[in-house]
């Protein structure tokens, strides 16, 4: 079950183990549960549980290749967070620049 709630994204990102799993997918995309469990101080069950939470937050997407389930980093929700706040700041900056340009060009009523 995927939650469309932005809370799910922040809750999923709030855990250092889950961020570490995302780091591992960022380094190598498309890994199986077995590959992801290697060299981690976590049980397979714990990794599986974290992946379920990441998948529910839509931070991890999956595809089946034969009987293997491959996990991918899905940064789209992180981009939505970027768009929601950073994008807005950029708009304001552009407006400020636009106002400055009008002032310098002597067109106050522009």
């Amino acid at each position, binding site marked *: 079950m*995927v939650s*469309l709630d932005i809370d799910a994204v922040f809750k999923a990102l709030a855990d250092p183990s889950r961020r570490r799993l995302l780091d591992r997918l960022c380094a190598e*995309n*498309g890994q199986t549960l077995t590959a992801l469990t290697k060299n981690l101080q976590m049980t397979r069950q714990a990794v599986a549980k974290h992946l379920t939470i990441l998948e529910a937050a*839509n931070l991890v*997407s*999956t*595809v089946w*290749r*034969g009987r293997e389930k*491959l996990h*991918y980093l*899905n*940064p*789209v*929700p*992180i*981009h*939505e967070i*970027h*768009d929601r706040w950073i*994008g807005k700041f*950029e*708009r304001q900056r*552009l407006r400020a620049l636009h106002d400055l340009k009008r002032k310098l060009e002597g067109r106050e009523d522009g």
Partner: protein
Amino acid sequence: MDKPEFVYVTYILSTPEKVWNALVDGEVTKQYWFRRKNASDWKVGSKWEHQDYDNPATVDIVGKVVESVPPRRLVITWALPADAASDEKHSRVTFEIEPFNETVRLKVTHDRLEPGSDMLRDISNGWPVVLSSLKTFLETGQPMPMATRRTTHPPE
């Protein structure tokens, strides 16, 4: 089956028809996809081009339509214009559109990319920007300002 290099998913409050249309209608793509026009008749075997909307002779990406099942599934190849004639240099993009509760699940799978290529790097920067811009555009009618300008690459 190849192991895809990228698998992106976004959930959009919209209908499969609108999401499909947003991928294939150049008048819509220009509003959220860096002012680019996706041009084709979208029939299997046809060519498609990713053009600069204001200057259609400028083409960034070319390819062929492999599968076209509106409004559910679109598979296209993806290459630089210089590589248009070399099929082995075409990567492949699959768009899967599925109703999901009250929303639409759009899954974009990109595979057959050359390891270490510029294309692979650009793709990994590009899809998340394009997909979140598409979602915002369909849900609010307003594109993200950074995705309406013409840029070769998405902003850092």
